[in-house]
């Protein structure tokens, strides 16, 4: 019997792709990551699997495509139930989905407002970014992970975005550790997990890419 083939159309620096890989790692699943050249030329497979957005990640399960990282992580959790990434009760799941949605609506754009700044980074952009992290810190409270004692859905959705924080700190001239120490501790805790450490690239490497993106976009 052939094993189910799991493929991710991937880009190493994409936090959205990292979410999918971490979820697969958490489930102990083997998969193939096919690197896409997002600037040189997207593959035919990517364009045909995600005709609406033409973006990574795309997750292919036995050739059937799934798009949008949060939807993919949900699918992985529903298809391979152990260990569960979402809490068992409906209210807990609604809370997890709420924070995942908040993270998607706010974090990456707030990062972008800083790393895409030409010249001096606007004070408002830095303030907004810190404010968002403080809201997340409040949601985390004294817990080890967002939904309780176990690493789960919200942590998976958020931790990859933090790989871009070093770049944001360098360009913005502040540190997350100084502004949001609880958040910083949560980051360190998650990065110790094998499923995460295998996937999240070194922050300096991401910073190099961000500087390259700035040049490409005519900011530097």
């Amino acid at each position, binding site marked *: 019997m052939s094993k189910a083939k799991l493929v991710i159309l991937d880009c190493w620096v994409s936090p959205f792709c990292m979410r999918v890989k971490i979820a697969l790692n958490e489930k102990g699943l083997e998969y193939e990551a096919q690197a896409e050249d997002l600037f040189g030329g997207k593959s035919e497979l990517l364009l045909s699997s995600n005709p*609406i957005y033409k973006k990574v990640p795309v997750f292919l*399960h036995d050739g*059937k495509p*799934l*798009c*949008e990282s949060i*939807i*993919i992580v*949900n*699918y992985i959790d*529903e*298809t391979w139930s152990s260990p569960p990434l979402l809490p068992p009760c*409906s*209210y807990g*799941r*609604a809370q997890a*989905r*709420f924070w995942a*949605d*908040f993270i998607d609506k706010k974090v990456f754009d707030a990062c972008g407002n800083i790393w895409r700044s030409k010249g001096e980074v606007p004070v408002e952009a830095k303030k907004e970014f810190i404010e968002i992290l403080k*809201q997340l810190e409040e949601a985390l409270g004294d817990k080890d992970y967002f939904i309780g004692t176990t690493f789960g859905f919200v942590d998976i959705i958020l931790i990859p975005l933090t790989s871009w924080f070093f770049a944001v700190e360098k360009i913005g001239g502040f540190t997350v550790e100084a502004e949001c120490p609880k958040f910083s501790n949560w980051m360190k805790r998650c990065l110790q997990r094998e499923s995460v450490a295998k996937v999240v690239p070194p922050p300096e490497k991401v910073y190099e890419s961000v500087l390259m993106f700035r040049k490409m976009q005519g900011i530097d």
Partner: protein
Amino acid sequence: MSDEIILLDFWSSPFAMRVRIALAEKGIEYEAREEDLSNKSSLLLKMNPVHKQIPVLIHKGRPVCESLIIVQYIDEVWSHKSPLLPSHPYHRANARFWADFVDKKIYPTGKLVWGATGEVQEAAKKELIESMKVLEGELGDKPYFGGESFGFTDVALIPFYTWFYSLETCGDFSIIANCPNLVAWAKRCMQRESVSKSLPDQYKVYCFLMELKKKFEAK
């Protein structure tokens, strides 16, 4: 703790309509509290401190926010009647994808078609028609987006039918001429009591949106 269900609501919000439809599909009794969005209640601010927006579903005293998250919550808690999401994970993912497409593509561009003018409006109109055609393509020959039964994607999209008159009048185009199957689908949905009782009249919504537009232009 009471089992009571409260919906913090606003009559013309497509997002609130999604929740009303889901509750009606499940035959759930609830109290709808109309918010004055220019003077938000302390209950709303307490129950949704992060976004301070409706809809908010309060169940057993606990808030659930964000319309698609609320619909999923309703579907999970009252799972014995009228399932909105399919049971197979792949079809669930598909339903979520298209509901998310409505949020990413129909809502923001629709807003610009009735709310903006000039080049911004023109560009939004082109994009909106394009997105509606994509949805029509996804619908195909099926009666509903999920297939034979009314479901999650239908709930996500049908409230925007209340915008059709506003979109056509402000954008000066015909939706039925561009997307006849989508209009047929909308009329099919409107035959369901859960939908027809949850959606306000299109002209009433038009008048409200035009008042809103005037307010923004005045600022």
